[in-house]
């Protein structure tokens, strides 16, 4: 092994650079950037006095937030001495995290310290964090309401989409009758149906379930059926010569082979369902994250609006990354074939 390295000029070069003085510098670059950025943000936050134009908060919440971030950074740094994985992650993500905290500091100075932007629409970070912390009970309730609407509507739409997609993909007569319907109704954004659903459904809640389901249904249907019709005929033929009949053609060949397509459809559907969810809540719901944002806007409480938006973004990105995890598991077989 060692002799290998001594014969390899590039290997020798890397060995050398490891020993050179930049070592300490690379330690700062690879491990310390987030901590330095957070400390800087803390320094700016505590040392520069607040502009009187911004309303005061009960506690210096943004300082608390930064202290929490500092604690997490210290934990990561400590872990990085023991775990190779953390070390690599820290080296890669550190710069980005530092960038985020520098940006937050800039915002902090613009809003809280100098009040250069109108304080009504651009509350200080202290006030935004305060809104989230002080309104947490209502926010949790709203998140739970939204989650219920999202999950129930989503899974109904997903299931319906998979069923109609499979029917269109495999049955000529289903394709004859359903395809035109899908083609006409599908491209209409599901929020367009809001006026109609408010009359047609007994409650705003059931209307919202329907709208979210509709939003997922269309892309899932389209991508499932197109996935199935794109499965190479030889797979079905190979299956037939191995004794597969119709049931297996659908469930053991057609659907697994179209999984990459289906996941694209599900992904599009998920994004569409988020839009629909928030819009539906803004129109007719009581509670829910979309309702919260609109309600706080009407009350001119912009720090709560921002708080609601931050919670929404966090919630949706958690859901999306769960979906990505699931996809990575289901599409393991093409991991190094297709990336998206």
């Amino acid at each position, binding site marked *: 092994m060692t002799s290998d390295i001594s014969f390899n000029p590039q290997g020798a070069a890397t060995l050398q650079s490891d020993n050179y003085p930049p070592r300490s510098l690379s330690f700062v670059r690879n491990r310390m950037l987030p901590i330095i950025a957070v400390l800087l943000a803390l320094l700016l936050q505590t040392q520069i006095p607040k502009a009187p134009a911004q309303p005061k908060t009960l506690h210096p919440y943004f300082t608390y937030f930064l202290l929490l971030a500092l604690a997490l950074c210290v934990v990561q740094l400590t872990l990085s001495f023991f775990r190779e994985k953390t070390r690599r992650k820290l080296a890669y993500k550190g710069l980005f995290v530092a960038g985020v905290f520098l940006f937050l500091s800039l915002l902090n100075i613009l809003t809280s310290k100098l009040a250069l932007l109108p304080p009504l629409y651009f509350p200080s970070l202290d006030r935004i964090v305060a809104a989230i912390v002080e309104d947490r009970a209502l926010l949790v309730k709203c998140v739970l309401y939204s989650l219920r609407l999202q999950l129930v509507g989503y899974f109904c739409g997903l299931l319906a989409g998979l069923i109609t997609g499979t029917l269109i993909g495999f049955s000529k007569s289903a394709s004859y009758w359903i395809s035109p319907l899908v083609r006409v109704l599908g491209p209409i954004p599901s929020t367009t149906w809001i006026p109609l659903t408010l009359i047609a459904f007994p409650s705003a809640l059931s209307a919202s379930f329907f709208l979210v389901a509709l939003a997922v249904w269309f892309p899932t249907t389209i991508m499932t059926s197109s996935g199935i019709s794109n499965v190479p005929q030889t797979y079905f033929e*190979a299956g037939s*010569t*191995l004794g597969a009949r119709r049931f297996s053609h659908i469930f053991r060949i057609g659907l697994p082979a179209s999984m990459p397509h289906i996941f694209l459809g599900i992904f599009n559907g998920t994004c569409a369902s988020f839009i629909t969810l928030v819009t539906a809540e803004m129109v007719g719901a009581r509670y829910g994250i979309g309702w919260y944002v609109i309600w706080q806007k009407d009350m001119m409480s912009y720090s709560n609006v921002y708080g609601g938006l931050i919670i929404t973004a966090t919630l949706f990105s958690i859901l999306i990354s769960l979906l990505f995890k699931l996809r990575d598991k289901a599409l393991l077989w093409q991991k*190094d074939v297709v990336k998206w």
Partner: protein
Amino acid sequence: MVNSAYDSLNGRRGQIELKNVGKKYKTNIGEVHALSDINLTIEAGSYVSLIGASGCGKSTMLRVIAGLTPLTAGSVTLDGKEIDGPGSDRGFVFQEHALFPWLTIRQNVAFGLKEARKQNANDEADKWLEITGLTGFGNAFPHQLSGGMCQRACLARSLAMNPAALLLDEPLGALDAFTRMYMQDEILRVWENRKTTMLMVTHDVDEAIYMSDCVVLLSPRPGRIEKTVEIELPRPRDRNDDRFISYRKTILESLHFAGFRREPDFYI
């Protein structure tokens, strides 16, 4: 251990009979007469090769026997029973391996066994992976294997069903010369152990002579049987044997390739 998979040695099954078989495709450029008046009996347990120019209907003939393509005239029987659709009694090895990319190699081989509700499908699959020299690759996905390995997995997948006949459509066409010769011996080894009836399409005259009991020559448009050549050479065969070479000459002449080769005008 390896031989246990051969336990269920089938007696004398796998006789294929084609009677006046004809096949016309209807296409946008008119009717294509792919096969016409084919009469052929393939003895149970024999190794038969189909050879002929591109487009003369070799694949069509194989697909008709597999039941993947309906015929338009005549009849095909397997052990006296008329064929009316695909079934696991006739294995099919496609030119481009056609393994299911979403299944591991083991799952691919076990696919048909599970379809037949066999218990221990995975153990049975492992046995076939061992026979085809793929032990240790059971958990790999097809795209992680070489072309030759995929073709072997395909062979294992078909053979695991214990078919009466195995239909091979240019199974080695995509392989390099060395892998190809190696695979020829692999296939022969399995065949000699099991005596499954083999019907193989190939473009390679040497391959046909090396492997088969009988070579069937097809002539194009419409596909007819031009000639059948029985290869009466002891196995294993020597590609440089005089009689091997004379068989090659006979077949090439029948295909109108012999004697047409022009001598080059100059040598470098």
